[in-house]
């Protein structure tokens, strides 16, 4: 009444005017991003992958394409297939992360980037074997990988994560070092008082 509402409104806008704008100018500045961000570029370590194709089987959209052949090494247990193709079509990916969850050997990780715009759909198919050979894209997201967070790894810091430190430390995958299958003892050892992770 009596125009006092206008004065109140003017004060509100003046407060907005004085404070720092909440917008950031994107290409120069970036909004803070969580390390568990499920990014577009999947990170895959050929050294850890056995070619079991769990990821391809669990993918709800069937966009992971794996071609394997028997490896030349004659290792009866815990050996790996020879991988001929490992492609992920992120044009159709919905980033549910099932492939990362099911990977028994911690070979597949979500990426941390989001600027994967391409001019053609074909460019959106990630050829992971080629990427691995070129040695690019080794900053995995820590989503579903508590061991990375335990190492205080931050994917946006520019540091790369090598394959040998990316796995769960308690579990050595090499067949000769595999622990005996005393599941209860193993659970007691590994998961007691670790619920916070």
């Amino acid at each position: 009444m009596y125009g006092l509402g206008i004065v109140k409104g003017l004060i509100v806008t003046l407060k907005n005017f004085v404070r720092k704008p909440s917008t950031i100018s994107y290409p120069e500045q970036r909004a803070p991003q969580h390390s568990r961000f499920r990014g577009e570029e999947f990170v895959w370590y050929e050294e850890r992958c056995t070619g079991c194709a769990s990821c391809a089987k669990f993918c709800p959209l069937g966009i992971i394409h794996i071609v394997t052949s028997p490896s030349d090494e004659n290792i009866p247990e815990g050996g790996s297939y020879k991988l001929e193709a490992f492609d992920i079509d992120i044009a159709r990916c919905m980033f549910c992360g099932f492939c990362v969850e099911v990977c028994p050997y911690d070979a597949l990780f979500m990426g941390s980037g989001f600027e994967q715009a391409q001019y053609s759909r074909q460019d959106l198919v990630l050829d992971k074997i080629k990427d691995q050979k070129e040695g690019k894209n080794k900053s995995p997201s820590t989503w579903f990988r508590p061991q990375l967070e335990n190492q205080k790894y931050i994917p946006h810091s520019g540091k790369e994560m090598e394959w040998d430190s990316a796995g769960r430390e308690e579990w050595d995958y090499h067949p000769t070092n595999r622990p005996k299958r005393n599941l209860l003892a193993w659970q007691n050892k590994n998961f007691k008082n670790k619920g916070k992770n």
Partner: protein
Amino acid sequence: MLSDNLWFHNIYCFLYTGDTAISGCSDAIGLLPESANWMPYYIAGFSMVLVLINIFMIFGALYTYAERRLIGRFQSRLGPNRAGPFGILQPVADGIKLLTKESMIPDTADKPVYNLAPVIMLVPVILVVAVLPVGEGTFMTDLNVSLLFAISITALTTIAIFMAGFSTGNRFAMLGAMRAVAQLISYEVPVVLSTVGIILLTGSLSLVDMVEAQTVPFILVQPLAFLIFIIGSSAEMNRTPFDVVEAESEIIAGYHTEYGGMRFAMIQLAEYASVLVNSAIITTLFLSGWDGPVSFIPSPIWFLLKMFFMAFCFIWIRATLPRLRMDQIMSFAWKFLLPLSLLNIFVTASEVLYFGVNGLFTQNDLWIMSLINFGVAILGIVIFTKVMEIGTDSNNKYKYPV
């Protein structure tokens, strides 16, 4: 007349040689040969016209940038910051874009009127600059009716807007034009009546005399008139609380819906320059014009600072207030502003009769009048809000702040 105008006088005497008795130049330097003594008059006059008009036009263009940027800040955004440092070249980019656009005329348009409307819109804005006292002795002319001139010339904008809306042959433009005529003519009345108090105090219609009379800034002596003037002039500029003329959510862009390219640029330039010109008039009438508390800062700088402050206030109001409905706008003008401006005239006239000795007021008189007028302003606003039921919707009795 010429000796009042320092700028003109200085340039004229700088160039003039010959008989100093005729020209009034006691300190003539004489750059031009004596045979060219007819030239300094034109050169001095033309330089003033060029500089003053271009100042307002360039600041008008920069004002578009300032408005977008400041409204961004008011809304907690950044505003345009890509073109040049801090986006300062944004008006240049906009200008180049608009000037290189195809000149489209709709088939339904009345072509001569359609082409003429943007020009007629820009002309009054430039004409008003002629009477603005930008600094001490820095004005193009000191008409003895310059306030009347300024008010009547700015009223020409109504005709330009109606021409633009009517000639386009577009229904949205027509709606905008009709709204413009209704609104602008209604608000012309309280605006003119609110200046009567100042005319009574100064006893002159000349803007220069008004600035010189302001030993106390008239915003303190005439608070009610200032309020009415600022509301009325923001309605005449079609700015936000009263921008039904170009309400983009109702009637696309109102009267300039079908305009594009250079014509649109001219309309925009006229609108934004008119904000600056209106701020300049408010500065002259209410904020004691070029007169500043500190004398080592030159008077034009004081004037520009006050003018920019008023322009900032207009941006601030635009960033804050939502648009009013048409009937609210009309009832606000006729039921609220008009009686208040009449009350202001009555009170000021009584004070002039009581205090005025030969139409002159001491500073003490003005301070006492200021106290009385503040009381009258508050009482008047409270009483007229109650009596005229401003802020009450007659249809559903829903109350909202005015």
